[in-house]
């Protein structure tokens, strides 16, 4: 029995087909598992293990290396505030404190209503609009306590539903189709290209 919904399962199988080795689909597939469950459930991990030809311990171990994967349930919105060097110089730490107060939960935890999880992040590569805030890995560009509070209220009221999907959904643009350069065709092309090259080298010699 598949734990993945049929659409997720299908996308997961499509992913495997994109790589020369099935394990390569691990990270994108873990994102898919999070898209379904919001975090990495034991069942999701087991299914990823099955599809990538690994053990659940390996999937768990691999996932736990990466900050974006959550092995415990998180809020619908994961709010990340950067405090790294550029944001630090722009008051990132104080900003994070404010966020914690506004959301009513300490850094690294989830608000009582289960809606928000607050994280302190490393540099999010948007340093000209510091301090940088991401919600579910979408830049929200709220650099003052006031704009932050307004943004949180908008999230609560659903005004930002289009911009910020719930946690786990990462890439909403789906790849159109699988691989197109068929293996045999590619091998033939390599052969032709090599012949052409050799011919040219020959003619240059003459």
């Amino acid at each position: 029995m598949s734990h993945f919904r049929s659409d997720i399962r299908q996308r997961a199988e499509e992913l495997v087909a994109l790589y020369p080795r099935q394990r390569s689909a691990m990270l994108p597939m873990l994102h898919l598992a999070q898209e379904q469950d919001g975090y990495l459930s034991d069942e999701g991990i087991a299914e990823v293990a099955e599809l990538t030809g690994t053990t659940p311990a390996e999937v768990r171990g691999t996932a736990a290396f990466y900050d974006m994967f959550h092995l415990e349930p998180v809020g619908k919105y994961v709010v990340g505030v950067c405090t790294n060097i550029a944001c630090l110089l722009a008051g990132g730490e104080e900003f994070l404190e404010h966020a914690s107060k506004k959301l009513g939960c300490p850094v690294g935890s989830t608000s009582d209503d289960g809606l928000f999880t607050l994280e302190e992040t490393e540099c999010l590569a948007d340093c000209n609009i510091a301090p940088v805030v991401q919600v579910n890995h979408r830049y929200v560009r709220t650099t003052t306590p006031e704009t932050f509070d307004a943004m949180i209220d908008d999230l609560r009221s659903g005004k930002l539903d289009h911009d910020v999907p719930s946690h786990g959904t990462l890439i909403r643009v789906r790849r159109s189709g699988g691989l197109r350069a068929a293996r045999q065709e590619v091998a033939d092309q390599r052969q032709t290209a090599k012949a052409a090259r050799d011919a040219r080298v020959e003619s240059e010699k003459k």
Partner: protein
Amino acid sequence: MASLDAPQIVSSRKDYADSFTLSRYLETGGYVALKKALTMFPEVVAAEVDAASLLGRGGAGFPAGRKWSMLRKSPISYLVVNGDESEPATFKDHYLVERDPHQLVEGVIIASYALQVNQAFIFMRGEFALGLERVQQAVNDAYAHGALGSKIFGSDFSLDIVVHPGAGAYICGEETSLIEALEGKRGFPRIKPPFFPAVTGLYGEPTVVNNVETMSNLPWIVNNGGAAFAALGAGRSTGTRLFALAGRVKNPGVYEIEMVKNTFRDLIYDPRLGGGIIDDKQIKAFIPGGVSAPWFGPELLDLPLGQDEVAEKGSMLGSGSIVVMDETSCVVRATWRITKFFSRESCGQCTPCREGSGWIERVMYRLENGGGRMEDIDLLLDLCDNIAPGLTWPPQQTTICVLGPSIPSSVHSAIQMFRDDFVAHVEHGGCPHD
């Protein structure tokens, strides 16, 4: 005054709101270079890139042309594009993937053609949700447009590009770690030798890894010729480069300027660029190339923005990010935050990096927040010395990858340049700025 006459090679579309769409891209000369490249022999395309002397824009600054030709001995199997961009205060690739994804895709197709590979991967840090969507859309559009897939534009060259999201780990920017992540594993950098993925890379096969910005330069180089690119800049540092300017400047942002012809002062102070320091304060120090680089003081503001020029003074241009600290910034706090970053991002394989980064971070924390001891300052230097013996530049290392020896960069710089600040922290029992 900065010299700003050089062409905008990778950021020419920055003023279009729809710069990321195929239609805008085609209107502004998109895919012309690819069509041209497909009429050339692959080696000739590679030779143009070699002639351009395009230095890799990911941090190590290795010439792309040389990387490709060196590897020619055994045919390359895969091209992997490094879009991990996680070096703190670096945000140039962020600009490129969100705002000009087609340019990147076209560059990747050109490089793949030059290398004759049929599968390329664009690895992008997972936190770039929008960038991932934009690049995926660009890839989809390119397939539909005939620029990707089987028999590109009617030629007999075929290529697939797979967009691969990372998941939040700085170390995956290191190319062998990135390859591990692409193989579905945790991002543990591979031990050297072999020194280059070109020898043994993805799935053990020869692989070229290049940065997003490096790739984005290729359409222009093919259109205008390697010589035109090499005519810009000076010495080994040719062309223009995207610099990410951050910290205590009035106009932080990404600026494309000609290399060597401009100095740090130009970038930081020119009103068309950084615009000077916030509240016109005095500059205290700046980091010339990402937090892995040793710091410079104001006396080096007139140093040209060139790879060798910066290296000569004991640091690096690295990822092209410049962080400015002014007289209001606490260098101990800044150093602490940088060591905290390394401690959180160390992959955990090598003992000196794993344990050293955590230890140094905790000592720095005490210095900044109270509990610092005078002997801590020399202890820090000695711990740094145990990670990067001799504290020289370029560093020696006791670790597998260069994340380890990057940890001492800021600690060593800060103590060397501002030992008094450290002493003051000890004497004050914490940060005197608070």
